[in-house]
């Protein structure tokens, strides 16, 4: 256990230093911009993976919390009486409460019905954002920019400082999510995912556990929203539209759900893909669609997951005598 913790810390530090100093090595604003996007959407995807990969809850409405974080934070800053860290904490807490309320209703539902109801709540929130024009600016989004007052001597109006701040926030969130997923709570969640009946037998309060991870995941998604709002200096209803949730799911599929950092790789890949496709063609739907089909039909799982499976298989093959059963069970070729 201890060696695992040490390894996590090392990986975390490496990630931190790479992200932190990459713009020093390549001092281009575009790289920073790009990485901030990866951080924001990476947080969305990774927090979603707490639900999908870790707990087996396929949420369709995760962007609701992304948007809630962005809007709460932006509105607090525009109100002008809070500092950035206070507004951030308030936005995270506010989103956690929202997730608690929504989650309390949603986690009782199973399978696809859970997916539907999270989608319904997201669309409801989206239509509130659109309708409540006096508060949210409606379809125009929050305008007039988000002020970035100096706190503790940190001035986020400086693009480099803003970037560094985002990296620190990001790595902190990763550390929290990693700790949770490696904690006994995390293993309880895995058990719920793999065998809820068994968990129930063992006296686990399944609903409460699911609610717990739902709230945590919502709060983490809100940090992604905050980062994006801070960066674009505004908040837009698109943040809470179902296509944003769809994008997060796509990132999971690209990167894989089985590895902790998989979704981040997915976010990186999708952002890079989007970046280049938009440069070269206006038919990005066509290109993206074909890419998805190739991945899903060709690899049959996320890129990171297939690589993971491939390496695992190779390794297992080497120790074939110890293996009693195949790692990968063949998939049924008919409807469930």
């Amino acid at each position, binding site marked *: 256990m201890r060696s695992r913790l040490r390894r996590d810390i090392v990986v975390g530090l490496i990630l931190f230093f790479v992200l932190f100093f990459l713009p020093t090595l390549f001092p281009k604003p575009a790289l920073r911009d790009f990485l901030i996007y990866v951080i924001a959407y990476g947080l969305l995807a990774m927090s979603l993976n707490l639900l*999908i990969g870790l707990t087996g809850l*396929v949420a369709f409405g995760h962007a609701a919390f992304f948007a809630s974080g962005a809007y709460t934070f932006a509105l607090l800053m525009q109100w002008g009486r809070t500092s950035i860290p206070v507004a951030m904490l308030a936005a995270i807490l506010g989103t956690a409460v929202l997730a608690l309320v929504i989650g309390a*209703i949603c986690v*009782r*539902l*199973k*399978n*696809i*019905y859970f*997916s*539907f*109801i999270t989608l*319904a*709540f997201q*669309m*409801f929130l989206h*239509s*509130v954002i659109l*309708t409540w024009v006096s508060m949210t600016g409606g379809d125009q989004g929050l305008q007039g920019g988000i002020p970035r007052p100096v706190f503790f001597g940190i001035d986020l109006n400086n693009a480099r400082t803003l970037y560094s701040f985002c990296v620190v926030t990001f790595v902190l969130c990763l550390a929290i999510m990693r700790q949770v997923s490696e904690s006994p709570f995390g293993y309880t969640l895995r058990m719920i995912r793999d065998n809820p009946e068994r968990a129930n037998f063992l006296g686990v309060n399944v609903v409460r556990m699911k609610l717990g991870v739902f709230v945590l995941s919502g709060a983490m998604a809100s940090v992604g929203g905050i980062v994006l709002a801070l960066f674009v200096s505004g908040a837009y209803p698109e943040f809470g539209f*179902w296509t944003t949730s*769809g994008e997060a*799911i*796509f990132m*999971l*599929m690209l990167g894989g759900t089985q590895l902790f950092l998989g979704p981040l790789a997915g976010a990186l890949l999708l952002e890079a893909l989007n970046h280049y496709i938009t440069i070269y063609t206006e*038919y*990005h*739907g*066509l290109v*993206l*669609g*074909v890419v*998805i*089909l190739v991945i*899903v*039909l060709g690899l*049959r*799982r996320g890129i990171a997951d297939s690589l993971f499976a491939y390496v695992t298989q190779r390794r297992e093959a080497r120790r074939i005598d110890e293996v009693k059963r195949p790692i990968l069970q063949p*998939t*049924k*070729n*008919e*409807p*469930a």
Partner: protein
Amino acid sequence: MNLEALVACLTSASCAVTQISTALIVGTLLFLVAAGLSLIFGVLGVINFAHGGFYMLGAYFAFTAYKLSGSFIVALVAGSLGAGLFGVLFERLIISRVYGRDLLMQLLVCYALTLILDDGVKLIYGAEYRMMGMPAAFAVAPVQIAGAFVPGYYLFMVAIALATGLLLWLGINRTLLGKTIRALAINPQMVGVLGVNTAALYAGVFGVGSLLAGMAGALAAPIRTLTPGIGFSFLIESFIVTVIGGMGSIAGAFIAALLIGFIRAFGAIGFPWFVEGLMFAIMALVLVIKPTGLLGREAA
């Protein structure tokens, strides 16, 4: 909230009839799309997020057929069959490969198809909005019913949609083929053992589902603007309908589609601000109380 206006409308024959006809016009078209979605889910267990794309295909096929032939009947048939054929192709080539797989995989495949179809249409037809126009046969004065006016075309549209719905229901509940399909939904292995070509049946069901969406598109073509991506806005609404009515239930889809139609028609008078929100609220409520929907059974 404007309850007065709502009450005033309900007590006036002409207003009530007009709004009821509006509810039927909105509802029946929605029903066609949602019924296809529901059928596909009920039998194949696939949530076809690409369903909106078939609506769009139906509309564009009808547009082209009408332009070439000048006959609306030809356009209607071309739109429906064209979308249906595409559905069969899509099922055989792509969807059949993700049966029984992760829900997310199915979702992604459908998402990919939607993206490809939208851009494909844009490539072929251009990004401009297009209008097929009302066939001359329907360019008549609105029909008067109890002081209310209902356009002739809408009467035709509602009749076609209702007849199709009825045929579909009879087909599923009153024929041998329907029985086989229902059995397929419950126990595909057993049906296969009995010597039925289940693969063909799956493709057929998917085709019929797509055909329904295409027919809705073709029926809408004379009155709605065509642009790449028109299926998108329809998707969420037909999705709400299927969830409320119960995934897999044709009758449920019918009831829920009419419910949405009535909310739209009377909401426009009584509570225009809350129409959108109300639909999502009802969907959430139904999911909480009876997750399988009004007339749905536990998914196979």
